[in-house]
């Protein structure tokens, strides 16, 4: 059936599925990209680093519930069909994102603010848990059997393009409004804007037809009565769910989120790069690497899925630490000599009384421009104590702008990391679709995918930041989490997975 589908039809199917998935990823990513600003809005001003970690925990909560969304919506998808299920997930996702843009800050409603955002994040996570499996299954069930990797890889590009779109909207909004207004209220705009995209996507999806394989199964009265039971209570199927999780999706998840998310978080929080600079680097890296999703997806149709995915994991294991060490070394402006400085200009000293004390905090911000084109702000925060006199604190160098050659070097390093993402992620939809039979495919493939991506991958920023905050840790310590998980997945995948494909999925 799928072999006779006209070519323009399959691209309509891909376009409609991909647009919805792209918007869902956009909705999901703006939260992660704005974690620092949202943390300031949702938690008390004196929360410090725990505001970021707690915001990342709320962000992570959205990932944690994805497997439950996979179960709920996967079951619906196998019972009532692919089309209506992933229409519903789109509405839930878009509605939640819009509402996050309307939530009052901690100053207005106290701890109700983070709790409401947590609730909406959970709905987002559930919806995303149902979305991806539906889109991948829907496209795969329309695709010719020898081009399944190629066609489903278009779905795979949406996760990266969603991040690209979210970063673009954030950067443009911030540049139009200015940093202060953006931090105060402008961060809400990217959330509110998503409703327009969702309405367009719902309109397109309403016009889609049900998957031909599912329609055939339904017409023959062969749809599963209880997809959850058949997926997980059947040993032959459940063992494949576990194999897919530990041998592929677990490693793929950490490679993906390290390259796309932790890299940005690291550049911003550990290297203290300027907000725009860190995002421009990622935007360029994504723009150059995105076509490789389709290249590796298509290649996997010819050489098999296994070794492409596992090679991506291996390269990540070998190169993450050297890459992040370069990030640290090249942004270490504390070692510059006086000769490197082109100009330096200090802003007026700000003195603030420390609450419940007669001491005050004196802050001076000096903007330093270097001869090589780089610049940064040096923040000196000294305590003026009535009893002990001046207590100088360590200077903080932040808002760093890189010289052009280093900027492009960083783009290259991000490109390389996202290239690894395309290796592990490009072929995986086809890989998962081919593991499971049609009548329980949506349910069966969604669970390992979302545990691998949502739980192992989605927790990378949270766990890596947490590990790096332990006493005795270095800024690179957080990388042991993705490296360890990818190593385990690489070993299991190498030994247990087969490189052969089940070409016929019409069962």
């Amino acid at each position, binding site marked *: 059936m799928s072999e006779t589908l006209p070519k323009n039809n399959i691209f309509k199917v891909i376009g409609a599925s991909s647009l919805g998935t792209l918007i869902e990823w956009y909705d999901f990513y703006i939260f992660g990209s704005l974690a620092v600003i949202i943390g300031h809005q949702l938690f008390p001003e004196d929360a410090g680093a725990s505001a970021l970690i707690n915001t990342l925990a709320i962000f992570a909560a959205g990932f944690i519930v994805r497997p439950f969304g996979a179960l709920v919506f996967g079951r619906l998808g196998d019972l009532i069909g692919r089309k209506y299920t992933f229409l519903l997930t789109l509405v839930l996702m878009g509605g939640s994102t819009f509402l996050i843009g309307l939530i009052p800050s901690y100053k207005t409603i106290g701890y109700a603010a983070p709790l409401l955002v947590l609730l909406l994040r959970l709905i987002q996570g559930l919806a995303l848990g149902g979305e991806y499996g539906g889109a991948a299954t829907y496209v795969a069930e329309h695709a010719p059997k020898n081009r399944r990797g190629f066609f489903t890889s278009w779905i795979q590009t949406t996760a990266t393009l969603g991040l690209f779109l979210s970063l673009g909207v954030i950067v443009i909004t911030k540049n139009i409004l200015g940093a202060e207004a953006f931090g105060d209220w402008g961060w809400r705009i990217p959330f509110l804007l998503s409703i327009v995209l969702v309405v367009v996507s719902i309109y397109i999806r309403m016009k889609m037809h049900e998957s031909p394989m599912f329609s055939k199964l339904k017409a023959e009265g062969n749809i599963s009565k209880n997809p959850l039971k058949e997926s997980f209570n059947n040993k032959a199927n459940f063992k494949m769910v576990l194999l897919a999780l530990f041998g592929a999706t677990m490693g793929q998840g950490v490679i993906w989120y390290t390259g796309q998310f932790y890299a940005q978080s690291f550049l911003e929080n550990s290297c203290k790069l300027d907000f725009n600079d860190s995002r421009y680097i990622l935007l360029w890296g994504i723009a150059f690497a995105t076509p490789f999703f389709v290249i590796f997806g298509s290649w996997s149709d010819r050489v098999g899925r296994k070794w492409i995915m596992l090679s991506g994991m291996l390269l990540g294991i070998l190169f993450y630490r050297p890459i992040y060490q370069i990030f640290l070394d090249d942004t270490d402006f504390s070692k510059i000599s006086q000769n490197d400085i082109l100009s330096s200009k200090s802003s007026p000293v700000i003195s603030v009384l420390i609450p419940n004390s007669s001491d005050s905090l004196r802050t001076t911000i000096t903007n330093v421009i270097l001869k090589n084109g780089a610049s940064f702000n040096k923040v000196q925060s000294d305590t003026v104590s009535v009893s002990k006199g001046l207590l100088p604190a360590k200077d903080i160098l932040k808002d760093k702008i890189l010289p052009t050659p280093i900027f492009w070097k960083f783009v290259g390093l991000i490109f390389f990391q996202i290239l690894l993402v395309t290796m592990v992620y490009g072929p995986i939809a086809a890989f998962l679709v081919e593991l499971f039979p049609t009548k329980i495919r949506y349910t069966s493939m969604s669970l390992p995918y979302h545990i691998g991506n949502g739980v192992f991958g989605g927790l990378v920023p949270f766990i890596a930041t947490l590990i790096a905050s332990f006493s005795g840790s270095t800024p690179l310590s957080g990388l042991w989490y993705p490296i360890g998980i990818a190593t385990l997945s690489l070993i299991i995948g190498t030994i247990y997975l087969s490189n052969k494909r*089940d070409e016929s999925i019409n069962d």
Partner: protein
Amino acid sequence: MNTLKKYLGLVWMILGPLAMIFLFIQAVDKVGLTHTEIERTNTILQWAIILFIFTPISLGLMIFGFYGWKGEYAKLPES
């Protein structure tokens, strides 16, 4: 290769509970290091999330190991 799959099954069966013991020890250690009540609440919350998530996954790893040990992966459907 099938012998390797089988004996590595034992490793996964052992790795599951070992990972949980390690995480539990880490949780107790990190909560004990906190200085203020707010820090303690945050740390407990963070580690509760980690333990909640990884407990069923480690159980899954044990089941995977058991299947490996029993030779369930000696022949896959596509091979």
